[in-house]
């Protein structure tokens, strides 16, 4: 795997030196797909594909491939809106059917091919996909697509047909999810220090610790590293923020693919997690506000396939885009305020709960507190010249030194005493 390694300053800064970055990472860990579930999702969609291809299926011989799309393709999946532990995984079912087939027919065909698949919950036919639900709170959304004959790789048409709408409202919609994912991944390099430090914390959160002094190539193959870029983790936090901000909304919400597009444009090395969240939030808010100033709904398209419009269903009006712009600006303003002013952990917790949800933030603060406490007891803390404390990310995994701002004072074990009143 290719990493970008920043050694321009002679050392690599610990990505979780600043407590806000450490806590944001804990929040991101709480909302994303647990380790192992991505592989499980891939196994599941292959199993669904095999079932849909069976000899008695109406799609027998017509399925070209299944492949991940959306958040799953860029490894940015988080829990579904309104939940803390349900996950939507999006898959394209590339079919060999007529390009101009009526949308409702294609969706019904896919539904007939999959209905009866042995899960304990009902398979559902939606407007653009068929959903398979599992008891462990994973949902697979399978979108049928037909490849355009003369287009770039996997430029396709998907089918839009709400079951309650008349056929004249049904649509063929251009799409190239594969191309977009490739574009995004190319633009968002992995920074080694962050990727490994985040992986270490993610594994500890799920009780899957790698030995602190393990070299990278000693990590067992079956415990493959979960490597994410700062850009993707920041995107996940913004998506979570969106989910909380629109938790009680009944209509459409800003789509994840729009946010991913801006994340790809915002990608930059050597930014902290909090700074990347601020950067992405301000970029999206700025674009939305500029469109509003022109009295237009923002138009955001797939950078590799202009006909694939990411904003075909949201925003529906200027008020919706201004509302989201305002919320994002508020998040960015709040994070910047925290970084520049004084606040204690209790007040930070209260503010973060509003942004990212009570349950998740409380859990993140608890984990932060546990990690710090264990380090204090075990002499595993590091200090800065201004009296700051942090728990260093496992340097042995990367073979790099700690931040130059940490002090030469070594942590020594001690036992708090005192009177209990």
């Amino acid at each position, binding site marked *: 795997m290719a990493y970008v390694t920043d050694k321009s300053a002679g050392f690599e800064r610990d990505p979780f030196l600043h*407590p*806000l970055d450490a806590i944001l990472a804990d929040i991101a860990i709480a909302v994303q797909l647990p380790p192992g579930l991505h592989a499980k999702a891939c196994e599941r969609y292959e199993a669904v594909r095999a079932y849909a291809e069976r000899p008695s299926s109406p799609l027998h011989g017509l399925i070209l491939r299944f492949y991940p799309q959306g958040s799953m393709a860029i490894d940015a999946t988080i829990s579904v809106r309104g939940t803390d532990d349900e996950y939507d995984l999006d898959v394209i079912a590339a079919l060999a059917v007529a390009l101009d087939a009526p949308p409702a027919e294609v969706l019904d065909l896919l539904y007939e091919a999959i209905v009866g698949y042995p899960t304990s919950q009902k398979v559902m036919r939606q407007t653009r996909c068929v959903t398979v639900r599992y008891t462990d709170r994973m949902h697979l959304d399978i979108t049928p697509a037909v490849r355009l004959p003369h287009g770039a790789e996997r430029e396709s048409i998907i089918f839009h047909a709400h079951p309650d709408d008349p056929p004249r409202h049904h649509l063929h919609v251009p799409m190239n999810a594969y191309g977009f994912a490739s574009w995004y991944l190319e633009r968002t390099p992995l920074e080694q220090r962050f990727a490994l430090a985040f992986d270490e914390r993610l594994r500890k959160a799920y009780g899957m610790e790698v030995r602190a002094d393990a070299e990278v190539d000693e990590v067992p193959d079956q415990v493959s590293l979960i490597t994410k870029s700062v850009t993707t983790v920041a995107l996940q936090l913004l998506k979570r923020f969106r989910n909380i901000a629109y938790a009680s909304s009944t209509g459409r919400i800003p789509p994840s693919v729009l946010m991913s597009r801006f994340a790809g444009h915002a990608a930059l090395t050597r930014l902290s997690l909090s700074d990347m969240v601020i950067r992405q939030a301000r970029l999206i808010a700025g674009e939305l506000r500029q469109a509003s100033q022109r009295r237009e709904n923002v138009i955001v398209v797939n950078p590799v396939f202009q006909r694939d419009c990411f904003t075909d269903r949201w925003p529906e009006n200027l008020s919706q885009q201004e509302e989201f712009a305002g919320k994002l600006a508020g998040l960015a303003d709040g994070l910047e305020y*925290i970084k520049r002013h*004084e*606040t*204690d*952990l*209790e007040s*930070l*917790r209260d503010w973060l709960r509003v942004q990212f949800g009570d349950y998740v933030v*409380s859990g993140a*603060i*608890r984990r*932060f*507190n*546990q990690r*710090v*406490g*264990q380090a*204090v*007891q075990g002499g595993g*803390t590091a*200090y800065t*010249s*201004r*009296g*700051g*404390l942090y728990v260093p990310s496992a340097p042995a995994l990367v073979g790099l030194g700690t931040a130059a701002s940490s*002090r*030469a*004072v*070594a*942590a*020594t*074990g*001690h*036992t*708090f*005493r*005192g*009177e*209990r*009143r």
Partner: protein
Amino acid sequence: MRASWPALRAERIDARTACWRGPLKPLLQTYEVHVVYRAPVIIELIDPLRQQPRVRILSPGLKQRRRDAEGDLPHVYWDDPNCPALCLFDHETGEWTPFHLLADTTIPWTIDWLTCYEGWRAAGEWTGGGRHAAPLLSQETRP
């Protein structure tokens, strides 16, 4: 002390007593701390409980939590109910002696205490470990 914690200002009180005062910022909040230490005349006769460096948090005021399992405020000496002294080490196990530099012990341990205090306030649990001593008479602990 100056080399490790440049923000702490030293003041000599008398031949055996010094104090330091200044800011420490363990997480996102700066605390004004006050440390005073009176060196013993005869080191062999030191009572670590009563002759240890005294650390008090001058601002912002520490927030108590009534009827918490750790007490109203964890791991302090209530010699001054308005500004208790922090209890940073076990005086019965030799964790600190006059041969230890305050810059290597008292100050980082104060940072540890403040960090754990913030975690205790935010998460409801003191995770820094420790144990409690019997109450002391206040006049015996005031430096």
